[in-house]
């Protein structure tokens, strides 16, 4: 029944189980949500441009803050990283596809519906206004009676489920489906950071799932998990959220580190310096990520011993991160660096991420954090790490692998202009925020008095935001332009080091005509030179007739199951008759599950 689905057109995209198409869909949806996040940021910065501005009201501003944070983290950085995981993991480890192709499609569709559910709050006119972490009492039924917070709670729940399913998929793919000869310490470094990210996802998402279930019970059924009047503790939500929250920020940054390591190695024409040390420090960051969450809660009165331990743990994480930064610089050292756009983004990642990491170390010590907590210094810190770090690296990744995905280079001049617009705009926006933080401007305030000495810095920050927005627009122009008339790119267009450059660009649906065999790290690069060191034509994948390769059949059941999950999640919005919508959603889910398991794979 599944065999006669068309191979091209909309239906093929809806029913695809090919990891490359799903990767493209993830990337396109993530960039679509980037527009949302960007516009929210511009609106907020315009409101804060001058003292006591009335561009937006207080609660709308809180809504924008919440949606900007949640959209950028859950609907832009994580899915764009997932796009890289999806597209590159099988290609880099020499696998025909991911371990569970249909489950891969399922996680995309659940993510899409979760993102739409979260942003539906704009249409419903009830924005979630509790901040991206939605602290307990304010987001409880008593102080946020409208459904706004429900959009956040259920949207993040659904998107979390999507990431969990994808994480299991990639974890099994990486450990079980590597090509012949590729032992764990011969895998590309990007695959290592992907693996550790999946471990973090697998272990931290259940915590937020339980916390969100508890909050939706509080809001819909009147239980009192976080309500002091019923004996609940307000900081229980903070603990559960940050037990997920801190591994979450490593989930955001580790893929970016992997991408930067790949780009630096390629454009310095040198292997990554200290590969095994980079692997161990990635694992160390992943493991320590679970023991430091309370540095977000130093001011909630944890007591001296807890503060001492958590600050020690937080400082300890700076060591493996420092090791990685020095390794990147040593990768550059002695190389033949060519500053293409991806390389510009990668090098700027090192600089910006270092500044972000160092401002983070500053408030890892509780006494300083008493002054920095919930002030603009923290806003500056995490934007330097998240924007200067993860987003810059992800844009570098797009420029780097775009030729492999579409067979055409992205335009270099537009890329470089966009890069410098980003660098100038980014620093103009977020460096003054350090001063705002020291001058005591609290976070999430929709306006401020004119006499606080904050006017100049807020004005500069807003100007920087406009410049960055300009850069963003230029990126989308470049993206669309290059899709159709970018310079043609061959298989090994950047003289790369990993297996995905052995494939044609864009690669055939069956990936590897001949299953690759790897003898050492950066095997593809080593084969480009014979014993005496002069260049030899690398062995690329031959062209074969696609019919000979068995491909998993496309299937629409993942979409049905995902739609069932969406209906289940939409129940709480319709108070009385909502239960029937959820039950109907359960029915659709059962239908999808049974249809899925009895389908010819």
């Amino acid at each position: 029944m599944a065999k006669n689905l068309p191979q091209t057109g909309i239906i093929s995209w809806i029913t695809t189980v090919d990891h490359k198409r799903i990767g493209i869909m993830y990337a396109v949806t993530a960039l679509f949500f980037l527009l949302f996040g960007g516009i929210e940021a511009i609106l907020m910065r315009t409101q804060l441009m001058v003292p006591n501005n009335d561009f937006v009201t207080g609660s709308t501003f809180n809504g924008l803050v919440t949606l900007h944070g949640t959209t950028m983290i859950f609907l832009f950085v994580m899915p764009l990283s997932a796009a890289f995981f999806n597209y590159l993991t099988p290609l880099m480890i020499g696998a025909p596809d991911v371990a569970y192709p249909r489950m891969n499609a399922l996680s995309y569709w659940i993510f899409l519906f979760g993102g739409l559910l979260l942003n539906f709050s704009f249409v419903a006119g009830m924005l979630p206004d509790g901040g991206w972490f939605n602290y307990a009492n304010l987001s409880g039924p008593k102080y946020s009676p409208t459904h706004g917070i429900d959009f956040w709670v259920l949207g993040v729940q659904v998107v979390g489920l999507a990431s969990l399913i994808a994480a299991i998929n990639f974890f099994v793919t990486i450990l079980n489906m590597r090509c012949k000869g590729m032992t764990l310490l011969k895998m590309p470094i990007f695959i290592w950071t992907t693996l550790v990210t999946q471990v973090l996802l697998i272990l931290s998402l259940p915590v937020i799932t339980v916390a969100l279930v508890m909050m939706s019970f509080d809001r819909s059924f009147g239980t009192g998990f976080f309500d002091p009047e019923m004996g609940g503790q307000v900081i229980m939500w903070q603990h559960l959220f940050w037990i997920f929250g801190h591994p979450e920020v490593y989930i955001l940054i580790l893929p970016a580190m992997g991408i930067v390591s790949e780009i630096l190695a390629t454009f310095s024409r040198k292997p990554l310096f200290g590969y095994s040390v980079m692997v161990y420090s990635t694992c160390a960051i992943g493991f320590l990520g679970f023991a430091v969450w309370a540095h977000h809660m130093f001011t909630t009165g944890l007591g001296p011993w807890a503060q001492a331990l958590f600050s020690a743990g937080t400082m300890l994480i700076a060591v493996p991160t420092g090791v990685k930064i020095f390794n990147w610089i040593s990768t550059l050292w002695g190389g033949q660096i060519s500053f293409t756009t991806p390389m510009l983004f990668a090098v700027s990642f090192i600089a910006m991420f270092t500044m972000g990491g160092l401002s983070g170390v500053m408030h890892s010590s509780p006494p300083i954090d008493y002054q920095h907590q919930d002030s603009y210094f923290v806003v500056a810190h995490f934007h330097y790490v998240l924007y200067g770090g993860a987003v810059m690296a992800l844009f570098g990744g797009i420029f780097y692998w775009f030729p492999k995905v579409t067979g055409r280079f992205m335009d270099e001049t537009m890329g470089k202009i966009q890069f410098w617009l980003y660098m100038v705009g980014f620093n103009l926006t977020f460096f003054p925020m350090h001063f705002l933080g020291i001058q005591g401007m609290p976070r999430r305030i929709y306006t401020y008095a004119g006499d606080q000495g904050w006017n100049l810095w807020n004005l500069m920050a807003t100007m920087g935001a406009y410049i960055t927005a300009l850069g963003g627009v230029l990126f989308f122009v470049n993206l669309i332009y290059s899709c159709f008339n970018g310079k043609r790119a061959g298989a090994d267009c950047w003289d790369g080091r990993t297996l995905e450059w052995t494939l044609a660009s864009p690669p055939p649906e069956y990936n590897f005509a001949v299953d690759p065999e790897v003898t050492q790290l950066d095997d593809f690069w080593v084969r480009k030179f014979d014993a005496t060191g002069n260049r030899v034509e690398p062995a690329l994948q031959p062209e074969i007739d696609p019919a000979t390769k068995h491909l998993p059949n496309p299937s629409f059941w993942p979409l049905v199951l995902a739609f069932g999950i969406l209906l289940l999640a939409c129940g709480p919005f319709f108070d009385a008759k909502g239960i029937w919508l959820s039950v109907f959603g359960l029915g659709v889910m059962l239908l999808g599950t049974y249809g899925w398991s009895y389908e010819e794979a």
Partner: protein
Amino acid sequence: MEILKKSTWRDPLQRLGLGWMAFSTSVFAEGSKQAKAFDEVEYQLRATLESPMNTIAGLTEWARGINHVYGITTLVVTLVFLAVSIPLIMAIVKFRVPEGTDLKQLKPPKQVHGNVQLEFVWAVIPVILLLFIAVPTWEAIFEQPEEAPEDALVVKVIGHQWWWEFQYPKYGITTANELHLPAETPVFFELTSADVIHSFWIPKMGGKKDCLPGKDAMNSMFFVTPAASEIKTLGGEYFQGQCAELCGSSHALMRFDTVLHTREEFGRWTQVHNQPPQVTSALQEKGQELFAQCAVCHTLAGTPSEEQEKSMLALGTPKQGPNLSNLGSRKMLGAGTRWNNQRNFIEWVKNPQSIKPGATMTAFGHLSEEELLALSAYLMQSTVKKI
């Protein structure tokens, strides 16, 4: 009447003169109204270059302790920043291949895979540097006392949705939005909240601590107030504080002032505060009757509304509104939102939502102009407490 100075967004332009800023500010500036809420002239004068909320003024022992750790950390961080940026810039400049060379022809550089000693060096040195931060941090962490020292003035701070309530159990005083403190005395704060999480923060005095709702979730904060020499202006030196934890739509308008008095001045303040309001003129008389409507939520020390408050507390439902005993002598209205003058008072009573969106106070639009004048005469003049 005050002359409302044009909002301050023009000053930076003159100072910096950036063409780009001029262009985009002129495009957007028309949309933004000129300053209308706080920018009363006198408040402007107070905003010298040193902003009222800066965190490194360090007036108390605790704040100076924080700045000490902050100084060391900044030094270490700058050191590490140089250790990273210098080799990075050198690498970029030194090993850059000129644009357009055909890389495929170029012989690849020496394929260096790693160097164990180097890895050891830049793993151990950061640990040592971090110890420079960690040791003073741990010292500072264990300095804060858990319980109130005997000689400390205990102040109960209760966060409400968008205003602050301060109680002095020793003197039986309850006041709001202005925290009066004697100089050079250890003060121990007991922080709780009546609704959502707030965060009590006086940057110049030291860090912030969350006010968590719930009986068993009481936080504490302790510092010794600065010496009398810090008090420059008569009637006490003003230090600003603000709520730092998102607590709803008017979280930005939840500010308060700490007023520092000399010991004698503070002593007089404690006696004077609970005196009943002196009704001198007929207008204030009329205002007193009108206050009966307000007594449902507000209390004035020394008036029948106080007994009403006691009975309501016995029932377990405390009054919703702040205590207004010394409203006349306060500098700001609505938790640091508006300057305390008659025009603002009347505008507040008529429609509180316009000033503080989401405020739970009902609007008294039905009162006539003359009744409002009477009410403001009573609440503004008769509650003034001369120290």
